[in-house]
């Protein structure tokens, strides 16, 4: 491609977005909807971000259901389709389902990548590919993004650079000699080998599951016990897709061994590795030899020099601290999008790391930047008083944002003295609850002892009350009891 044809040459832009994965692309789409001029740059040569490489074993763990109880392409369908990128106009939407061959409800990496590329092409999202972010400076006008092609000045910088850099804990002697799972060879290179897998999170079991037909034996070890998503009723647990190695171990299949142990030391031998283990839940020590070893110890965001200009980080420097609207906790004007938004904390734990969760952040972030940084007035739709209770319960039952980002995102209805009730759209719940604002009510979805339930926050002056609704066997929260209860609670506030 001739350089003259490429968009966004170095220069001054109100906003610069770094990254061309699902986060960067959707942020650009929504900024454009708000008419905010911006440049998008990416070190990659094509759209897709992490999906150009991940998942390593070729299939995602997020579903897209071709046959759902609701119509494909509707807002409600988003709960049944965790992978398609968002669009405000139905004509702009690209459903991942159309690229899937029917062998699984989980798209392959290639199918997902195709859908993202099509979204970028269909929506004519301009990106300066092959332009690498190399450094960052802060000045009185904002920021200078230094790249392989020159400097970009901007008031607002948005980083959507993924969370896919290999990370290893610094305190295990010898860990530097074994590859991180991102750097693993193809499965066939493990044919007939014994393998040590350091870690027991989903990525460890993804590796073990992928190598069941290849490795002769595998030991997985980490200090804490395995927790299953189906038991915990949480995506934080080991995903059901990868439980086959667990069954192998449980029935004594002798291919897989799962230990609760700390890895004390890894020694590189003439051939393979010697691993010293010490039990964490019981007192024992063991030294084992393996043909190969791999560290499934997590990933980090490539933040480059952002900490040097004051961006606060946590989790061993792996993620930036963020406000509920994904702005740096310490450097105003720097925002994050895509999977890095998992570093922001909602009302109960962090936001989600996958597309189905962070895709909503991109839409809300663009709207927030448009208002906060460029003075745009938010769009608000009136809500009839007689419809309020039904509206809130319907949102709790069907709002995909509330289900995909439980206790992080909420539908907010404001009580405006002039306009009356107004639908303010979807916002971070923590912001509604913690920061001064006009009276209103927010509805979210929570989990009460593992059971999804509606929850309402009613603000009157500086006071915010929490009202937990009852769940329903069929997860339809518009029950007579919830209607009665909510009507009574809101009567005092709305008059």
């Amino acid at each position: 491609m001739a350089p003259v044809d490429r968009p966004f040459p170095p220069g001054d832009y109100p906003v610069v977005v770094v990254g061309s994965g699902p986060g960067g692309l959707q942020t650009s789409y929504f900024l454009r909807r708000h008419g905010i001029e911006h440049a998008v740059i990416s070190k990659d040569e094509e759209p897709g971000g992490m999906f150009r490489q991940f998942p390593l074993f070729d299939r995602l763990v997020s579903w897209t259901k071709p046959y759902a109880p609701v119509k494909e392409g509707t807002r409600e369908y988003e709960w049944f389709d965790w992978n398609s990128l968002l669009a405000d106009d139905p004509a702009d939407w690209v459903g991942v389902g159309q690229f899937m061959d029917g062998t699984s409800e989980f798209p392959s990496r290639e199918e997902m990548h195709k859908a993202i590329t099509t979204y970028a092409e269909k929506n004519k999202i301009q990106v300066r590919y092959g332009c690498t972010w190399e450094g960052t400076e802060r000045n009185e006008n904002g920021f200078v993004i230094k790249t392989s092609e020159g400097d970009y000045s901007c008031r607002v910088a948005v980083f959507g650079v993924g969370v896919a850099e290999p990370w290893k804990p610094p305190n295990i002697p010898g860990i530097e000699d074994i590859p991180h799972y991102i750097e693993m060879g193809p499965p066939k290179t493990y044919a007939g080998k014994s393998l040590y897998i350091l870690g027991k999170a989903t990525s460890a079991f993804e590796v073990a599951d992928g190598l069941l037909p290849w490795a002769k034996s595998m030991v997985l070890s980490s200090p804490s016990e395995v927790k299953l998503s189906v038991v915990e009723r949480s995506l934080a647990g080991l995903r059901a897709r990868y439980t086959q190695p667990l069954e192998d171990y449980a029935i004594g299949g002798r291919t897989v061994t799962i230990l609760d142990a700390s890895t004390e030391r890894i020694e590189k031998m003439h051939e393979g590795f010697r691993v010293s283990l010490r039990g964490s839940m019981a007192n024992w020590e063991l030294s084992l030899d393996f043909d190969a070893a791999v560290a499934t110890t997590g990933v980090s965001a490539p933040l480059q020099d952002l900490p040097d200009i004051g961006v606060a980080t946590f989790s061993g420097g792996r993620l930036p601290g963020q406000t509920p609207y994904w702005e740096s906790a310490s450097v105003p004007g720097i925002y994050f999008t895509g999977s890095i938004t998992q570093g922001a904390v909602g009302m109960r734990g962090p936001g989600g790391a996958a597309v189905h969760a962070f895709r909503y952040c991109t839409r809300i972030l663009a709207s927030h930047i448009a208002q906060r940084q460029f003075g745009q007035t938010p769009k608000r739709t009136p809500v009839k008083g007689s419809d309020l209770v039904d509206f809130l319960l319907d949102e709790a039952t069907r709002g995909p944002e509330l289900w995909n980002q439980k206790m992080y995102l909420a539908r907010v209805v404001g009580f405006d003295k002039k306009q009356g009730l107004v639908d303010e759209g979807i916002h971070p719940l923590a912001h509604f609850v913690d920061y001064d604002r006009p009276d209103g009510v927010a509805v979210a979805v929570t989990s009460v002892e593992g059971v999804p339930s509606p929850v309402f926050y009613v603000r009157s002056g500086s006071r915010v009350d929490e009202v937990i609704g009852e769940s329903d066997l069929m997860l339809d929260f518009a029950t007579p009891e919830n209607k009665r209860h909510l009507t009574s609670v809101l009567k005092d506030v709305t008059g």
Partner: protein
Amino acid sequence: MKADQDLTDVLASLALFADLSRPQIEAVAHTCEEVSFPQGQRVLRQGFSHPDFYLIVEGEAEVRIDGVSRTKLGRGDFFGEVAVLLDEPATADVVSLTFLRCMTLPGSDLHQLLVSFPELMFRMLKVETGRLRQTLEWRP
């Protein structure tokens, strides 16, 4: 403290975990999640149900009851346990005074953690006893 310090190393330096072996501390660190809050954000919210359990690894926070400041918390201090153990809504707000890094655990998992590591439970009990004594001394 260095932002890139591993959570296990942070916990190992706190009195609360002094009786635990290194593998046990690693097990605790793996069970929990590290989260961060910007200055001025509420971490615990008075009157709200099902809070998580938190332990500060970096930064300062303030305990407020009905908007009135009661005490400050710093590295190694924990909060949220009262609501979790009594299964009641949080009795206070905890607000970050600085950028705050915490180790957190869903309230429902605290019981299992304490039963798995009785030495940790004993250390926490000592802290709670100290807090109770302080409360009693405040009484007129």
